[in-house]
């Protein structure tokens, strides 16, 4: 196997696994330098010594906490890619390349249409599921919110009651005031970080939904592959 073949294999495998660009550049650069330093006349030998580029790519993906064989979306791409590869190999001139990429765009649109139909057809199943999930999330948020309000109310009530009590039955007043202040203190300690966490959770849920929709329709992926 030549240096170029080796690096191309590795690259496509890393790309499929979704390795970030800087990590990919690092890895490819390292292996390219190994070939160059070993000597151009020993490319086959060097490749044999290094092992299977796909295995190496898999190890790198695992090191980076990624799933080596990609998500199902990427596997679907596997089926599409061979056709693209062979057409590229035949070194089409610019005219044909242009046609080819336009066809590809057409196909992508058809794919999206098909997916849209599928989503609509299966809507009786997933709409109730999504609604139930949304309901649960809203309920959880409401409970958390209610707890906060209750904590604040108790703290505030006891504090006010305690101050009032100070003038009638001082010991009980002081006791109530102390409990009230503890309640308010707890509210202050817990409320701010909890609110932050809630906001962050909401943001990441929305992000997740957007990512899923993007993945289904592959928005922006054509650009990344080109």
């Amino acid at each position, binding site marked *: 196997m030549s240096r170029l073949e080796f690096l191309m294999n590795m690259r496509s495998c890393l790309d499929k696994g979704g390795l970030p660009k800087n990590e990919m550049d690092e890895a490819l650069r390292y292996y390219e330098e190994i070939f160059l330093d070993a000597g151009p006349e020993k490319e086959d030998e060097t490749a044999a*010594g290094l092992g299977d580029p796909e295995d190496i790519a898999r190890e790198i993906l695992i090191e980076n906490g990624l799933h080596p064989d990609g998500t199902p979306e990427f596997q679907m791409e596997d089926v599409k890619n061979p056709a693209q590869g062979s057409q590229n190999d035949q070194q089409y001139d610019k005219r044909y390349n242009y046609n080819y990429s336009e066809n590809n765009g057409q196909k992508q649109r058809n794919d999206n249409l098909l997916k849209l139909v599928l989503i609509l057809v299966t809507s009786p199943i997933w709409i109730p599921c999504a609604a139930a999930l949304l309901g649960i999330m809203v309920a959880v948020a409401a409970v958390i919110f209610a707890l906060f309000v209750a904590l604040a109310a108790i703290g505030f009530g006891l504090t006010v009651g305690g101050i009032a009590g100070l003038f009638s039955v001082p010991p009980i007043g002081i006791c109530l005031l102390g409990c009230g202040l503890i309640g308010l203190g707890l509210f202050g300690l817990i409320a701010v970080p909890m609110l932050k966490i809630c906001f962050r959770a909401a943001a990441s849920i929305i992000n997740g939904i957007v990512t899923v929709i993007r993945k289904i329709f592959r928005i922006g992926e054509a650009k990344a592959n080109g």
Partner: protein
Amino acid sequence: MGFPVSAGLLDSMVLSVVEREDTYGYEITQYLRRAVDVSESTLYPVLRRLQKNELLETYDKEYMGRNRRYYRVTDKGMNALEDYRHQWTEHKIKVDSILMNEGEKL
């Protein structure tokens, strides 16, 4: 070599090789091969890990019309290497006490 090399040992050996003089990936492997059976592919994650932990840093130097990536041990790496050497000495004494029956001498 009948004895497998652990990740920690490999890390420390790589640090030691680079400490001698700044060097590049291919040469590090060649040097390590005097002692252990490793390939460049085994070494890549090691180098990357050492870099991420800031024990090694890299810089580019021109060589034959291209840039070659050189590795250099950081201050943090020097400390880690000292630590590794200390641990290795202790480890060696303990293993020798059993393997070479040097227990009496301790």
